[in-house]
């Protein structure tokens, strides 16, 4: 049962009650959003790889600012749409979700958890491989940029999973 406690929650709920734009009413449309956000995430990892290879240098700094900047701006646009498409399933507090949405949120978090574990192991492996070939070269900028990429990934994974899994929305009776 959804119970609104504050004005802010009322506004959030109203925003997520709106109909999904027709472009994202199909599976291919929604998966297009997921692919775009994966590209944005890839930009963060690209900057991390560049930092590990070139930092400290001007080239590494410019590439990092460019990649992370584009990833941030494009990612924010895509994430905004994904919040609307998923009707805030991963964004709204639990007491504003019905039982189906709450279950979907749990599933998304459980899948994300498994993916996060894989990601952490893959990252550790890559860093270890990079360090053994380059001696003990580990620039602090690279560590920070890698950390940012991982944090952003962990933060958006549940939203990506929910968008990927979402069934087609039911058209409103007036539109059907």
């Amino acid at each position: 049962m959804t119970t609104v406690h504050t004005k802010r929650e009322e506004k959030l709920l109203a925003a997520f009650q709106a109909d999904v734009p027709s472009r994202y009413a199909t599976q291919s449309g929604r998966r297009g959003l997921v692919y775009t956000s994966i590209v944005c995430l890839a930009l963060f990892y690209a900057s991390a790889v560049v930092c590990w290879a070139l930092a400290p240098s001007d080239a590494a700094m410019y590439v990092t600012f460019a990649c992370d900047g584009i990833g941030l701006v494009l990612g924010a646009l895509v994430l905004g749409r994904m919040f609307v498409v998923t009707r805030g399933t991963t964004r709204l507090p639990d007491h504003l979700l019905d039982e189906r949405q709450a279950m979907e949120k749990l599933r998304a978090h459980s899948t994300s958890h498994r993916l996060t574990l894989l990601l952490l192991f893959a990252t550790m492996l890559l860093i270890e491989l990079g360090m053994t070939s380059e001696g003990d070269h580990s620039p602090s900028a690279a560590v920070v940029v890698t950390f940012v990429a991982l944090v952003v990934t962990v933060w958006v994974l549940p939203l990506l999973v929910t968008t990927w899994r979402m069934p087609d929305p039911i058209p409103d009776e007036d539109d059907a």
Partner: protein
Amino acid sequence: MPTDKDKELVHNRIAVLRAERGVSRRELATALGVHYQTVGYLERGEYSPSLHLALQIAEHFQVPVEVVFSLKPFPLIGSTTSQGDSK
């Protein structure tokens, strides 16, 4: 051979009851405290409700829960009458 998904499928007559009572999806959703898309997914058989929600739906339509939900497909309207007539 029924698949695992078929075995878990719960058939329902929410759409029929809603049409019969002239209740919109949004009205039913508001009465039940769920998102109107949840009512749509229930009608389409893409989501099986919890026992609590199933009882709430039955109570809303003032019918026993087995009138709304069944593990077997509901007979088509008129099919039982025509069988009865032929006997």
